[in-house]
């Protein structure tokens, strides 16, 4: 009986092509929105499984945007429980056109920033030996047509070199991609040496954006964090130490509680989806009361008719989900190709797709249940009278 219900219900959704198209388009757009928001959320919101819980990030107590003196390196390194200390600064750079911007991460030597990237040992060693070397992510290289060995001039925002200019020449030593989903976020940035940029400045700033601390095995992140902050408390640059995950979360919160905003939009989208589908279906069920009454007269039960309506709802929304999934996949691909943003382009993974798709289909069943209840309550005799 289920197959019969599915067969009969699938014959219906696109009878009125315009209405079917509009419903599917609405669902597809909602799905695109849900998918994109989920992806953005995933990019900015560190998941429980992502790396960062065992790495401490040391920033200025006053603001994560305030630089810290590189001299703090030694102070931090002496804190018990600290195994390694790295540091880095972020710059916005421009290649050829002002609109062609990219993120430049200036990293200390040694650094852990090269871990999880597809770079050979030779390329990594070469980076430590070449002061003006640059390692670029695959997407960035592809977008700009860069090759290994090429010299590229980059204009760096807020940077003044000894000649009074803002342009520096770098030699591409390697092109990489992230070996994990987490590291894939580096695929459209470039890595340069912090010491080279610092020394090229007209006036050395000796400032870093943040310190990254790797802990000794068994060291307590809380205890080490407190110890670092105590060690800098009476200096000109008191610090705030937290796990890398916590830092990302705090940055996330600083973006105007984007998380909350996204949740609100998602909830609004879900309500829209339920209302649009439920409204469309209840109208359709009302118009098809004669058909449903005819099927009942032939011998179909109330529950079969109700199932047909739910299957129709799910089928219609599933079509929208597939269209939405294709749209979002295409959208992500276009964004990857165009690099319109300085931030890593969100990639909607299968997990996000599956969660959103399952949720959407469950909602479709819920939305369909309104029409299904209406169809099940149908009075056959009255409905058949309408046809005459």
């Amino acid at each position: 009986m289920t197959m019969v219900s599915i067969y009969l219900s699938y014959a219906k959704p696109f009878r009125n092509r315009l209405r079917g198209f509009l419903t599917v388009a609405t669902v597809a757009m909602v799905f695109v929105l849900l998918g994109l928001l989920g992806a953005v959320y995933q990019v900015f919101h560190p998941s429980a499984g992502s790396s960062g819980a065992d790495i401490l990030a040391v920033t200025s107590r006053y603001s994560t945007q305030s630089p810290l003196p590189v001299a703090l390196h030694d102070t931090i390194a002496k804190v018990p429980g600290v195994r390694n200390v790295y540091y880095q600064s972020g710059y916005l750079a421009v290649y050829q056109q002002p609109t062609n911007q990219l993120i430049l991460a200036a990293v200390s030597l040694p650094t852990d920033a090269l871990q999880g990237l597809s770079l050979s040992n030779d390329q990594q060693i070469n980076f430590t030996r070449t002061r003006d070397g640059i390692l670029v992510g695959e997407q960035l290289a592809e977008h700009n047509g860069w090759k290994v060995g090429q010299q590229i001039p980059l204009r760096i925002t807020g940077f003044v070199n000894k000649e009074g200019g803002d342009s520096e020449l770098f030699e591409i030593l390697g092109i990489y991609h992230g070996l994990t989903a987490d590291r894939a976020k580096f695929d459209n940035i470039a890595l340069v040496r912090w010491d080279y940029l610092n020394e090229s400045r007209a006036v050395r700033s000796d400032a870093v954006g943040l310190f990254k601390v790797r802990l000794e095995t068994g060291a307590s992140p809380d205890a080490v964090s407190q110890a670092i902050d105590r060690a800098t408390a009476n200096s000109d640059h008191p610090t705030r130490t937290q796990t890398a995950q916590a830092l990302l979360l705090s940055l996330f919160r600083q973006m105007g509680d984007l998380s909350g905003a996204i949740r609100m939009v998602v909830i609004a989208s879900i309500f829209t989806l339920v209302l649009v589908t439920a409204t469309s279906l209840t109208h359709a069920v009302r118009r098809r009361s004669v058909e449903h009454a005819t099927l009942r007269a032939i011998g179909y039960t109330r529950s079969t008719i109700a199932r047909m309506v739910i299957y129709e709802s799910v089928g219609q929304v599933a079509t929208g989900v597939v269209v939405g999934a294709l749209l979002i996949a295409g959208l992500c691909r276009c964004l990857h190709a165009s690099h319109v943003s300085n931030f890593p382009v969100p990639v909607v993974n299968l997990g996000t797709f599956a969660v959103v798709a399952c949720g959407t289909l469950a909602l479709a069943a819920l939305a369909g249940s309104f029409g299904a209840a209406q169809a099940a309550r149908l009075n056959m005799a009255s409905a058949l009278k309408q046809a005459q």
Partner: protein
Amino acid sequence: MNVLIELSQLNKSYGSGETAVNVLKDINLRVAEGEFIALMGPSGSGKTTLLNLIGGIDRPSGGRIRFRAQSLEALSDAALGRWRSAHVGFVFQSYNLLPSLSALANVEVPLMLTALNRSERLRRSRTALDLVGLSERANHKPRQLSGGQQQRVAIARAIVGGPSLLICDEPTGNLDREAADEILALLAELRGVNGVTLVMVTHDPKAAAYADRVVVLDKGSVDEPVLRVA
């Protein structure tokens, strides 16, 4: 004479208390196996209501409906549905075909409730379409067919399950004279071939002329004497 349907003191009213409207009052009627009955009467006399009660689409407020030895009024909704599926075929004035399905698929719809496999369902559906002379239109959608052709498809749908009783509610009401005559001739022919019992509501005396007996309803009662046509 084997009685197929027996109505005893059948009543049907809508509403309750002082606002109750009695549509049918104390109807007594017997329909023999293989008989063709036409129900006639002015608008609002309760013809369609009576037809719905006989066909198990509606339930009486009082009295009994027996189909062979079985009382219908005691059946549950689901059991009544199964009874309709097994024993009754319906032909409606507006055909009531599913517009998104082809003629063949429309005819197949009642068989989907049976345990028949798809190939057998299709074979029987094609046979039924052939019987009504529409085998060449099997893949056409209802909107691609004329009114007469749509009613033929509806008749094929009604007979495909091999019912004992065919309920026809003004089957020619939306058709021109020529198409109406063709449909009535077809119904009469089917009765001859399958031995099916026909109960038909009509306003058309020419249509009633095809019946063995005409039962005239007036203000909810069978207007005696019952006219016997043939």
